[in-house]
Every structure is written in C-alpha cells, then in structure tokens.
C-alpha cells in the first residue's frame, strides 16, 4: 500500500494579517498513528480544521487515499471517512449526552419512518461510555451539567464509535483523569489493531504520545520543525528540540 | 333623578361598544356620551375592541360580548363584511346590534348612528375643491389602509376628481404616532414648496399640518390647510388663522344617541328604538372656533367634568 491515507502539501492558512500555517506538508499512512506536538498557537488546531473540511486553506493541496480533494464541508470530509474531535469539543449544551454523541449521525426508526430512534441511541451511548470507563451519571442529562472531563469523554466517544477510516483527535486527553486517559489509550490501540484505521492525534503530553504514536511531528509557529518515528526519540530529546527551535524561530 | 323616577323599573342593562380605535382621543367624547346616557338611564357599558382597527380583534371582542350575554351591542362597522356573521349570531341570541360611527348597511344591524367615514371624506374633498382652484394638493394619512381613515381619504380623492378641477393629489403616509407625523409633513413641504394645499384625514396629521402651516407661515403664501378632529394644537392654530378648517363629527352624540336607542329598544321589547341618526358634520373655522377654545367640556372631550355650558346670544349655523 503506497498511498497515504491522508496527505497535505504546502498548506498555508492566513487570518487577515496573521499567518497561522506557513506551508505545512504532512501525511499519515493507513493504519498509522501520527502524534502532533507543538507550542500553543503553533497552528495545530488550524491544520486539523482544514483536514476535516471545517475551514478552507488559503493555499495548498490535500489528498485522501491518493486522490486530490477539495474538502467542501465537514459532511464531505465525513463521507470520505474522516471523523474528528475538535479542541472545543463541538458539544451542544442544551442536548442530552446521547443526542450529542449521535449528532448528525442520528439513528432513525424503521416505523414511524424518519423519527429518531432515541432508545437505540441511548443504549449505544451507554455502551460506548462504559467502554471508555468514564463515570457519567446518566446519558439523558444535558451536557452542560457535566464536568470538563465528562464532556471530553463524550466527544471522544462520538468519534471512536463512528466507522471512520481516518480519525483526527485534537488534544483528546486534555481534561481526562489519569485512569480514564489510560482506558482511552487502550481503546485507541484496540481500534488500531482492528486494521487500516489512521489516526492523527494532537497532544501535549510527550510521554503519552510516545507510548501511543508510531511517528511524531513537531509544529512551531506555523511550520513543521521536526519529524521522527516514535521509537527513535525520547521525551528529553523532544524537550530539547522544542527549546532549541523556539529560540531559533524567536531570534529569526 | 327626576327623569329616572319616570322610567319603568328595569334591570341594569349592559351595553357593549365595540370600537376600532379604542384609545383614540376622537372617541373620548363618545365615551362621555355613553357614560352620560347610561347614568341617566341606569345602565352599564363596556368600551372594548381593537386599538389598531384590526377587524379580527373586533370580531373577537364582539364574540366575547355575545358569550358574555351583553344586553345590547354597538359596533363600528369599519369592514364591509367582517361583521355579518357575528351580527347575525348576536341577533339570533336576542341581542340587538346597532352600528355607530362607521356603517355597512348590508351587515344586518338595526340602525346606524353617526356620520359615514366615506361621506365625511367626500365633504372634505368638496371643500378642498372649493378652496384650491388648481395645482398640487397633499393628503396626509397616518396609516394607509387602516379601516377608520382610509375611507375618508378615498372619499376626498373621489370628490376632488369629481369636481373636475385641475388638481393633482399626493397621498402621503405620516406614521402612527404624533411625534413622527409632524416631521413627515414638514419634510414633505420642504420637498414640495409648490403645493397649494395640505389636508389630513386623521387627528394627529391634522395637528401636524396646522403646526407646519404655523411654522412656515404658509397662509401668507396662499397655501390652504384643513383636516379632521379637534386636538388642542389644532384648535389653537385655527384660532390663530393658520388652518382653514377642521371637521367636527360630534362624537359625543354618536355615543349618547346609540345608548339611548339601545335603551328604548330593550325597554319597549323591541317595538321601538332603532332609528337612523346622522350626527352631522361640522366644519369648524376661525369664525366658529371660539367656543371650543373657551370651554373645556365633556362634549368635546377636553374635560371630564360633567357640567352645563352656558351660552347666550343668537345661534348661528
């Protein structure tokens, strides 16, 4: 299999005078987990939003399973098998846990037709959340009443329970407890083991990232500054590179 | 009290007056007329309807009156057909229905008390044709299409056209509240200083016309002005010679006589009562304005106090 699941070439993104991405090229292979690390404001989330079709790049090309595409919308990306968890979680406060988990992928009844199958969604939501090991009082509760970690768990559960072929996760463990993080990492590894699922994870915890990722990539100030197989580097080395590159960029 | 003693013993009948612009100052005297008649006769009345000439709201109010078993209903028939059914229902339920202030003869009411809106407009149009030989005339209306004033402007336009004089008409909307009306009329005048006359069909616009005529001293330029009803500033400006006329429709009578007819109908078991009454239409000018200014009375609505207004000397029409 020589085609990458997802490949981006020379992506540039400007917000008015601000250049958030200054020509980023990256790729993820089928069945691979790519970890993206980097400073705050480096453009990681911006890159991610471009890869999911949420916002268009200023310039640059995208390839999904070898074909060049212009992602018109999130729906379009989803149709191509790209699913994601945004950093802002994209939860709707007024809706229940299970409606949030199935947002825009609702299960419908056979009869009466076109009606929501709430029972089925409720049941499945419970299952997935139990899998992740997060204690959520009820799937009927509105998400605004939940704790930060509980909310994040729902967003993650939503993505992992889809049948995506490319999964994009923006800091999926930021608000998770240690125990829950471990369970989610397990879950992701199990998903990966099932075969050809590609995952891109934006992370800040180097140790966790090296544990789970096959390859890591470092972003700073809108550019990729370092890239290596996870096995070939270590936390101290990464720390050192981050400091060095930061100083270099700053003085430039 | 004396009059009362001669009346037969009767229940305290309740008359419901369904109006199209319940809070319009024009109908202040009407309500006083009803009040006085009811006090005289020992009856009760309710003043209800719509604030904005909304026929559906008036129909609802009438239906509520029927459901509430009113003894008699009076309604301004501002819509030619909307009241047919409720009137029929009321009459079937044994409630006499009278029309006042605005009429639709085919609606099935017992009698009409008032001055027809359209005919009042016609009278105004004839007057305008008399005042202005030719040229451009502006007709101001607060809310075009509103059932209580649109017929007046239609009547005025028709009469002016019928007169055959070379008069062109601009119909201008002034807005529903007095504070806007003044500015609109002023702006119109500034844009059309060749206008020969400015007339209005509602109380607020009439007041506005009179204020602009005073502000720009238009009578000195030979521009004529007139309108309807007697708001305080309108009266003052007529007195000071800035407005040529205003039309008084004797709203007091529209309430007083209607209540009287209702009472007689009920007292006589339906044998008597309904009679068409034309409450008339008075052109008030600089010559006839004085009594309006010198007296504050229920009959013109600018005072609440019930009192007899003394007068003396010969009576002029």
């Amino acid at each position, binding site marked *: 299999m020589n085609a990458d699941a997802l490949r981006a070439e020379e992506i540039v993104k400007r917000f008015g005078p601000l250049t958030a991405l200054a020509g980023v090229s990256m790729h993820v292979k089928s069945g691979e987990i790519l970890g993206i690390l980097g400073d705050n404001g480096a453009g990681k989330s911006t890159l991610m939003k471009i890869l999911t079709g949420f916002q268009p790049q200023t310039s640059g090309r995208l390839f999904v399973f070898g074909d060049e595409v212009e992602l018109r919308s999130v729906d379009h990306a989803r149709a191509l098998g790209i699913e994601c968890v945004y950093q802002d979680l994209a939860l709707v406060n007024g809706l229940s846990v299970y409606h949030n988990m199935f947002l825009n992928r609702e299960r419908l009844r056979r009869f009466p037709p076109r*009606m929501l199958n709430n029972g089925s969604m409720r049941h499945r939501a419970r299952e997935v959340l139990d899998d992740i090991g997060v204690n959520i009082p009820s799937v009927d509760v509105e998400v605004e009443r939940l704790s930060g970690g509980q909310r994040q768990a729902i967003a993650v559960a939503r993505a992992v329970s889809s049948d995506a072929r490319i999964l994009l996760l923006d800091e999926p463990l930021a608000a998770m407890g240690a125990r829950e993080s471990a369970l989610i990492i397990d879950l992701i590894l199990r998903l990966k083991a099932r075969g050809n699922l590609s995952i891109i994870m934006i992370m800040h915890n180097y140790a966790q990232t090296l544990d789970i990722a096959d390859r890591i990539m470092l972003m700073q100030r809108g550019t990729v500054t370092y890239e290596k197989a996870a096995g070939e580097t270590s936390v101290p080395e990464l720390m050192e590179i981050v400091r060095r590159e930061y100083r270099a960029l700053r003085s430039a | 009290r004396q009059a009362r003693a001669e009346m037969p013993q009767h229940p305290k009948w309740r008359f419901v007056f369904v109006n199209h612009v319940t809070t319009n100052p024009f109908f202040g005297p009407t309500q006083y007329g009803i009040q006085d008649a009811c006090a005289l006769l020992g009856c009760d009345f309710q003043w209800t309807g719509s604030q904005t000439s909304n026929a559906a709201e008036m129909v609802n109010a009438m239906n509520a009156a029927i459901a509430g078993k009113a003894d008699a209903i009076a309604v301004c028939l501002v819509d030619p057909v909307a009241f047919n059914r409720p009137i029929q229902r009321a009459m079937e339920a044994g409630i006499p229905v009278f029309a006042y202030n605005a009429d639709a003869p085919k609606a099935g009411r017992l009698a009409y008390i008032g001055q027809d809106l359209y005919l009042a407009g016609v009278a105004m149009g004839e007057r305008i044709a008399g005042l202005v030989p030719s040229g451009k005339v502006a007709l101001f209306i607060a809310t075009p299409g509103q059932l209580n004033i649109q017929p007046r402007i239609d009547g005025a336009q028709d009469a002016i056209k019928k007169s055959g004089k070379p008069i062109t008409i601009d119909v201008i909307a002034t807005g529903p509240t007095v504070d806007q009306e003044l500015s609109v009329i002023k702006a119109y005048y500034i844009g059309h200083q060749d206008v020969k006359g400015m007339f209005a069909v509602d109380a607020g616009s009439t007041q506005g016309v009179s204020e602009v005529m005073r502000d720009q001293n238009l009578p000195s330029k030979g521009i004529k002005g007139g309108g309807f009803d007697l708001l305080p500033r309108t009266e003052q400006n007529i007195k000071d010679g800035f407005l040529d006329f205003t039309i008084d429709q004797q709203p007091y009578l529209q309430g007083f006589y209607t209540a009287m007819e209702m009472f007689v109908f009920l007292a006589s078991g339906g044998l008597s009562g309904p009679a068409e009454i034309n409450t008339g239409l008075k052109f008030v000018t600089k010559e006839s304005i004085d009594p309006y200014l010198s007296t504050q009375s229920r009959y013109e609505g600018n005072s609440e106090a019930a009192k007899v207004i003394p007068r003396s000397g010969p009576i002029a029409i």
Partner: protein
Amino acid sequence: MSSATGSGAAGGPSRVGSAVDAFLRIREASIVVVAILLVIYFQSVNENFLSKANLETLSQFIAASAIIACGEIMLLICGEIDLSVGQVFALAPFIMHFANTAGVPLVLAIILALLACALIGLLNGLITVMLSVPSFVTTLGTLFLINGFTLTISHGSPVQTGGSEAFADVMGAWGYSEILWAFLIVAIMHTALRQTRWGLHTIATGGNLTGAAEAGIHVNRIKVGNFVLTSVLGGFTGILEAFRIGSTDPLAGGTNIMFLAVAAGVIGGTPLAGGSGTIVGGLIGAIVLGVLRDGFTLQGINAFTFDMIIGAAILVAMVSNIHLGRLRGAGARR
C-alpha cells in the same frame, strides 16, 4: 482525612435521568398550572366563561397566535426571529383572492398563496444567512416591503373572502375549525422538534452554531428552512383568519400578531437566546394570553384599564409560572 466514604456519593443513571425528565415535564407543567388557575378564576367571576359560546370565542383568541408561534419558536430556537410574519399573514389571503378571481380554483389559489409565502421565507432566510444580515433587520425590511406590496395590490381596502360555505367552514369559518388546525399543526411541529433530525439540528444550530457546523450540520439550510416554515405558517393563518371573519384586510395581522406569537413562545418557555424551546409550551403560552384577553373582555373591562390589567396579569402569570417551576423542581437547578 479521607473521610465520609460512608455517606455514599450517589447519582446512578436512573435517579438523575428521572429527575431530568421530571424537570423537563415540569417546565411545561408549571405554565399549564397557571393556565388552569386563570380558567378557574375567570369561571368563578363570570359563569359564562366556560359556556359553549365562550369556549368557541376563546378558541379563536388562541388559534392564530398558537399556529404562528410554532414557526417563531423554531426560529427562536435556531437563534433567529421573523418580524415580517404578520405582513405575510395579510398578504397571503390577497394572493389567494386575486388568484381566485383570476379563475384559479380556490384550493389551488391557496397553494399558490402558500408558495408565495414560502418564497418570502426563502428570501428572508437567504438574505440572513448568505449576506449575513441580522434577521431582525432582514425581516424588518421585508415587513415594510410586504406591507407596501399588500397595500398597493389591494388599494388599501378590504375585500370579501370567497369560497363555498362548506369550504370556508373547513378553512376557519366554522367556530372550532381554526383551533383544530392549530392543534394539528402544534402536534406535527412538536413531533418535528422532538422526534426528528430537523428538530434536533435546529436545537443544535441555536445551541452551538460553531459546534453544529463542526459536526457537519448544514446550519444555513436549517435556518432558511425555518424561515420558510414560519412564513408559510403565517400565510396559512392569515388565510384561516380571512375565512373566519369573511373579510380580507390589508392591515390584518401586522406586528401585533407577530408580537403575540413571539410572546406566546417566550411565555411558554422558549428563550429569545436560542438553543432550546418547546412547541407545546408555545401553545400553552398562547392559551394563557388568549384566556387573559378573552376573560377580561368577558368581564367587561374597559379599554383603558384593560391594558393595565392585562399587563399586570402577564407579569403575575409569568412570576407564578417561574415560582411554580421552582417549587416543583426544587433543587433540580441551583
């Protein structure tokens, strides 16, 4: 200090779930209680209140605003508002009238009128989402536009509504037909809001616009759809009312009915801020307003004091509504 493990941190799924359910049920229940109290009050001061004749009248006080509220509530939920619906209300029966007098059969004329309303809704929606004009301004513009258009085509005077008696009866002339239409539409819209993707996506659009878009919901489509819906409901109500009173009036409806409908929605529990709402609540809000207006009219309150009393009554009703909601749902919120 690792104390108090005994007192049992609780909250199994079922307990919280049923509490939330109960609370949701209560949100509409408290306004129902207010409505019932009002009915009891009016019946106690005037025994005609629950008479057959007045129930019919009462139903007519309620129906129009209840139907339009269904549309406005959907718009409020997705974060928009339609000020022009009252003008569409006036326009629709005129379109029907002119189509009918031009020889189009009445049923088709109605469909034509509703299509025109849909077009106006589409215009409102597209200007709002495509050109990002706030809907308050868009629909303020179309409010004037439509009003002027209706005045022009009607020459400012009312016309008689046509149609056979039987047809008119179905379309609003029979005493209870309008309220039956209202119930039907409320039932459909309630289901649409609670049981379909459309409803869920409407809530999501209003609750978190970015989030909904991130989830791939076509938020613009949702908004435009609800504008179309509101216009069509407004036009349909205008037609019903034209048949009911037998007359088609160019200034019927207006901002008045729009206000009533939005007020019914808000009183029923739909916040102006969007993101949540209830259609049934809107119906009950319309009932509360209708009962107040009908009740006080029946009682013979005069026009001047009427406004004062109705104003106070709205406040009292709303305060008790919220107080009741708190009492019964005590603790469900902080």
